């Protein structure tokens, strides 16, 4: 089975490889190599303006991946060139070392996030002296460079980012039918009547679509929705028919494992 790379957000080829290998527990044989090589190409293009050495290193890593995969797909030919074999091992170890280093700093970043969150709970006093001491430092701008003023302007005028829940360091949450039911119980009463296709068109992973479908069936079983399919294989219309008093917690769902 080839693994569809459907991770919504990743940052560059190392991140992608780490996510695939560590979070999804897949090996290079299963990975859709095109996506990874594409990610490398994007970064190589960016990095050429930065540093030729770095870019060259990236080409090498991409080539190693292709070589690794090719080797896995082909049956053992028996007559391996020992030099080539050693070179491949070497390249593979280099890639491994790179990934380990990237992983190390990813984990450090997680600790930094915790430190920053803790530090956020305390607010420093930055009030400065009161007006009784105004005479002491008549020039508060002494030593302030134009660059410092410019940076302050950039800080102040940059619109704040929309707060996002950063799941960067969290392993992807497995979608459960129970979660999907909870989502639907929230979503469907507002939608009233909605087609299954519309309900799922924002989803990327096929497994998510399947889980939603199971959730819809669950709600149908509970009598919370009405289903309507006008033709075979046609779209399914879902209508919320439960009243306001519908007890969400009553929807007990078996946990579908695997």
């Amino acid at each position: 089975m080839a693994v569809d790379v459907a991770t919504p957000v990743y940052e560059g080829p190392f991140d992608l490889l780490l996510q695939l290998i560590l979070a999804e527990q897949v090996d290079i044989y299963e990975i859709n190599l095109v996506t990874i090589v594409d990610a490398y190409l994007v970064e190589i293009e960016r990095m050429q303006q930065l540093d030729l050495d770095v870019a060259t290193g990236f080409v090498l890593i991409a080539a190693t991946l292709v070589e690794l995969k090719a080797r896995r797909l082909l049956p053992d030919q028996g007559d391996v060139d020992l030099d080539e074999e050693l070179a491949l091992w070497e390249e593979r170890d280099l890639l491994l070392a790179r990934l380990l280093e990237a992983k190390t700093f990813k984990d450090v970043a997680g600790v930094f996030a915790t430190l920053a969150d803790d530090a956020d709970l305390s607010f420093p006093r930055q009030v400065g002296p009161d007006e009784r001491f105004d005479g002491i430092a008549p020039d508060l701008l002494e030593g302030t460079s134009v660059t410092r003023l410019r940076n302050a302007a950039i800080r102040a005028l940059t619109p704040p980012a929309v707060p996002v829940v950063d799941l960067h360091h969290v392993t992807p949450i497995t979608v459960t039918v129970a979660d999907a039911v909870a989502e639907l119980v929230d979503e469907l009463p507002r939608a009233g009547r909605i087609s299954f296709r519309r309900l799922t068109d924002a989803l990327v992973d096929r497994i998510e679509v399947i889980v939603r479908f199971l959730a819809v069936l669950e709600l149908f079983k509970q009598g919370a929705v009405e289903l309507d399919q006008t033709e075979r294989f046609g779209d399914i219309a879902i209508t919320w028919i439960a009243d306001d008093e519908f007890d969400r917690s009553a929807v007990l769902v078996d946990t579908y494992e695997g």
Partner: protein
Amino acid sequence: MTDASEPSLGALIESIVLVAHDPVPTELLAQLLERPIDEVDACCDELAEAYRSEGRGFELVHVAGGVRFQTVADHAPWVERFLLYDQRARLSGAALETLAIIAYKQPISRAQVAAIRGVDPDGVLRTLQARGYVAELGRDDGPGQAILFGTTPTFLERLGLRSLDDLPPIAEFIPGPEVVEALEDGLRITPSIDVDAPPA
């Protein structure tokens, strides 16, 4: 003195007044902490008395319609020595940002500065005016006739600028709101693999 789950009123007052740039009216404290104002007033008096009796280097005083922390008068010589010595005695981050906004966006009203910074710039504006870095330029033509602020020749002189045109451009650094998030998140790549997106 205080239960871990329920901070004491005194401790809460201390926290808020510690970070306030301007004296905090006790009415505001009462409102924020959802306590009767009499209780807040009494608590402030208790705190002030406690600091006095403990011989603290700071005191809690009523000034300009609110309470604030300030250094005890006897320590003025040491505080002055620190302020003179401290190479970093300069505008606070908040003051510098406000000054920067005014420098780049003048003429600008107080409300506009507040909208950008997310806080009332009153105290900071007063400091900047008192220091002669910022002055009233005139009034807005609009209905509110808001006072408009701008920087002064003193400001230019202190920064070694001949004119406002000498300020380094910032437009290239200020992204629109839609790209800020992307910038913050770095250069993330979204895989383009949705070859068979379901029809709408």
